[in-house]
């Protein structure tokens, strides 16, 4: 089994996610970029798990855990974004500048 294509896809997705986190100004889009990074990890885990023929299936199991935790995380994340939006009428991360240095 050749796993290069999966790893390249995962690395690309992860990089796109980091790029999105760094350049996006809207908190919701930053959140989406983080989800991309987690998806990249899932692809990696499943690909590696299949490649090394792990009898415990740790890779697949871990991917399931990541999916679950990511759902919980995005739930909390969106709640915090809504909270910030209510208080400021904006979800622009550049405007979060009450505290610096």
């Amino acid at each position, binding site marked *: 089994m050749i796993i290069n294509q999966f790893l390249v896809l995962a690395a690309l997705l992860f990089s796109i996610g980091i790029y999105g986190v760094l350049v996006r100004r809207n*908190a919701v889009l930053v959140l989406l970029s983080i989800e991309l990074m987690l998806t990249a990890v899932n692809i990696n885990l499943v690909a590696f798990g299949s490649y*090394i023929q792990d009898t415990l299936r*740790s890779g697949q199991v871990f991917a399931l855990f990541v999916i679950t935790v990511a759902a919980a995380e995005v739930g909390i*994340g969106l709640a915090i974004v809504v909270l910030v939006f209510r208080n400021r009428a904006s979800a622009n991360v550049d405007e*979060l500048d009450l*505290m610096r240095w």
Partner: protein
Amino acid sequence: MNMNLLAVAPEVIVVVAVVALLMIDVQWRPGPVWWAIAAAMGIAGATAAVALQWVDYRGADAASFFSDMIAIDGFGAFAGMVIFPLAGLGLMAAWPLIRSQGGRGAEFVVLVLIAATGAHLMAAAANLIMLFVGLEVFSISLYVLAGFTRERVDADEAALKYFLLGAVASAIFLYGIALVYASTGTTSIGGIATYLRSTILLRPGVLMAGMAMLLVGLAFKVSAAPFHMWAPDVYQGAPGGVTGFLAAGAKVAGFAAMARVLAVALGGRIDDWAPAVAVLAAVSIVLGTLLALVQSDLKRMLAYSSVAHAGFILTALVAGANGIPDMWFYVATYAVQVLAAFTVASVVSGATQGRAPLSDYTGLASRSPWLAGMLGLLMLAMAGIPLTAGFVGKAAVFRSAIDADYLWLVIVGVVSAVAGLFFYLRVIVLMYMQAADEESGHIPVPGGARVVLVAVGVLTVLIGVVPWPLLTWLRDALPL
């Protein structure tokens, strides 16, 4: 599958208390007294369970259960004996904040208890899957706690910053786990350690990349420079009553996970990661100290000082598994000190307030001599003055680093510790040698905060004067 209910007893007890509290609160709205009773029972039960684990399984008797997912060893048990009482102290210190939130106060208690459970899971994990789940349970609870006073904009800002940066760090940490899994074929911490000791990797690039990403993720959680950017903003913006538990818990849980991952799982590769940890430590110590010098807000100053303290704790970890007892000594004593220091900040500047400008503390000694004395003692302990636990902690971590041949790191640490005296003493000078504003009067200290301050003050001095019992004891606080 070898099951041992004692392995999960602390978590089960706390979760039972949490579920009971949530259901009773929904049904009968019983009020703060019952929240306190539920929390006290959960924490007392969990502490008893980890104490039992300590008695039965420390040292050579350590073992892992539930398909190699959770370990009972001196390491996890000691972490629990720090974390659960810390959660109790954190709740006591935060009680005015909890009461001010009306019916939502029960949620606060629940979140602190769940965070403590996650923190203990991180410390007791025998598998990276378990460690990750614990890390997320812990972190997600703290994201919510940071923004608990919903209407205040700086608390929201703190929560969002903490969440976004924390989630990115978790993703990087996960990618690191995936790469380590790829090169070792297992996610079991013991399995990784055995594999790395018995196998010579021909092309260790994947493992190296994985190690680097794990280190970045964990360095973020313990706020080691250059991954500390979130800490000052979060500590300053979060409500006064939250910050203490947030800062103390993150250090205990983060360093427990770090020791498990680096010193145990990747212990065979210490020559690869120790230099990186040493650099992280040096940068944290220097940057934390320098930036703390110029702050005008007590909570922000303590945040930068916590970055420096993260560096001091990392100094013990360059010695690998040999440094773990010294790391624990420093982590445990620092955690209670930072909790108490933020408690003073929440009493003086307000439990729901984020900011604690240093001008609030001018002439505090004449207004509230007792509070000023406690804060003064804590500042001396954090600075590492002899006869306080802070001094013994610094001596211990430096000894570890010297044993591991990192003399340069010790020199950096000692010089920075001396420079750090300046900002700690500045607070004391402000409190004792300057006159108070005329309109400010005596500050009443709530009962919970009083208990926290007395307990921490006694512990800090007691451990500072007779540190040997704890130091000897900690020789058993080693991972499986």
